[in-house]
């Protein structure tokens, strides 16, 4: 798997880097760290041409030292981690260009967990992720990568979600569980085994076809916050979101759960 991970010298990146390095112990991956240095307006007052280029090169050299030190400190022995790419320019545009031209299977970034879901929605609905078709892994906390929960709902294209997940993590030695979510405002959750649910059964069949037997199958009803909290035992929650459609309760679950969230775009 080709992974692009966005790095800054901050806590969110520290967590995301450590987390993806944990994953690389269980899944074969090539991890490309990338940092984009955004020059302030003043940096370009030199004008265009060679002055600007040499100035950018200076910025790259300075930043490279800082980010390389950060990478060394955070992930000294990370399997699959390659040398950092440092770019200068607009963060979103540069990342976009890199992702489009780089054959990446997964984009990873740190996004600290928040009580207020608006931070999650600002990111999801923001111009950068809106243009992205590559799956995005938002790392909110450093969790053990031992259990994966695939979160389903009635609107989801299971035949797209499961193959996408398998393309990335088929060989990962982790327990995979299926969780089908039904919205309610109730703070108490209602759980059944999902044996009557066609979407769950389809997801189960698709996993079984590839030799993966779900560790647990649940149909769960409750408020997004309570269900998000119940997913805390997971090492990663995988789900599918539609950028264009109206907001679904499942996105509130993804917003409120404190564990890393892998979003596959519909």
């Amino acid at each position, binding site marked *: 798997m080709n992974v692009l991970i966005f790095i800054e010298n*901050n*806590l969110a990146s520290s*967590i995301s880097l450590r987390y993806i390095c944990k994953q690389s112990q269980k899944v074969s991956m090539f991890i490309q760290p990338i940092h984009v240095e955004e020059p302030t307006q003043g940096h370009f007052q030199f004008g265009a041409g060679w002055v600007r280029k040499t100035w950018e090169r200076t910025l790259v050299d300075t930043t490279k030292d800082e980010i390389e030190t950060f990478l060394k400190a955070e992930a000294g022995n990370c399997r699959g981690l390659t040398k950092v790419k440092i770019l200068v320019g607009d963060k979103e545009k540069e990342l976009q260009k890199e992702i489009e031209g780089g054959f990446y299977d997964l984009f990873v970034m740190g996004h*600290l*967990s*928040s*009580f*207020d879901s608006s*931070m999650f929605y600002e990111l999801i609905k923001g111009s950068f992720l809106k243009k992205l078709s590559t799956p995005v892994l938002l790392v909110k906390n450093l969790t053990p990568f031992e259990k994966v929960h695939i979160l389903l709902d009635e609107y989801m294209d299971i035949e797209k979600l499961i193959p996408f997940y398998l393309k990335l993590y088929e060989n990962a030695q982790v327990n995979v569980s299926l969780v089908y979510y039904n919205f309610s405002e109730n703070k108490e959750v209602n759980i059944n085994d999902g044996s009557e649910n066609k979407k769950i059964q389809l997801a189960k069949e698709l996993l079984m076809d590839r030799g993966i037997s779900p560790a647990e199958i649940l149909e769960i009803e409750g408020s997004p916050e309570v269900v998000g909290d119940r997913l805390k035992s997971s090492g990663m929650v995988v789900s599918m979101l539609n950028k264009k459609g109206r907001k679904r309760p499942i996105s509130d679950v993804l917003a409120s759960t*404190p564990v890393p969230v892998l979003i596959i775009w519909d």
Partner: protein
Amino acid sequence: MRILVAVDTNPYSSYVVNEVGKMAINTWSDITLLGILDPKKSTGKVEESDLAKSLLDFREIITSYYPKGECPYSREEIKSFSQIKDDVYVATGKGGLKTLKIVIRKGINPVQEILNQADEDESTLIVLGCNKTNKCKWDDMDVPSKVANQASCSVLVVKENKTPKQIVCCLDQEYITQNSLELINQMVTLYNAELKIVGVAEGESLKMRVENTMKNLFMYYLKQDIPLWLEVINSSVFPNFVHQMSQDNLIAIWLGPKSFLKKFFPDEKITTLISDAPSSVLLLR
């Protein structure tokens, strides 16, 4: 660590002493068990008061957490109290590696007496109990919340029979003391609870200094192999967050001199938090 346990004769005080006993196993703290006698209501000898009997029982409870021969506190039987100054009586056994003393102060203002004792002992932590049904009062007096507001050290208000799921620590500044970290760790161990560190950001982005502190804590707990949840919240939703979290979790708030959380938790709000929260509250200073 020097712990001042302020008690009365209500059942919640017995609960608190048990919690302190469990905490003391790991910390080997110096402990003062303090009771306040209202001079108008108690005219006889201090030793003969119900409070003195309760305090002696509480001392037994704390030492009972240790097997024989391993207790750092003196187990010598206490027969009398010594008056060390006006209206202050002390009883302590001989020997022991650490101090476990009983203090009875006579006074009409229990809050002031507790604060005076904490100053004299240079306490790191004051622990008090209350129950959930009467707005955390001591016989109709707002003792726990007033102590929490006025103390210069950390204060733990323990609600009876409520085991928190998580220890939720809210911080907004970079200055965190070793003592406060130790307290947090003790709470995690005591309740076998998860730990969550919440950085409170003022404005749009998490301030650099808060993030640095969170990162240091993240590294610290990673090295200790203690699982940790990290969360950031905007200061505007902080009161709502605390209200929601306090339903099932122990809320710990760092209230340092530079803390802007004081803005969200002025004295009256601290009082509300302590009186309304179903779970225990820890104010770290």
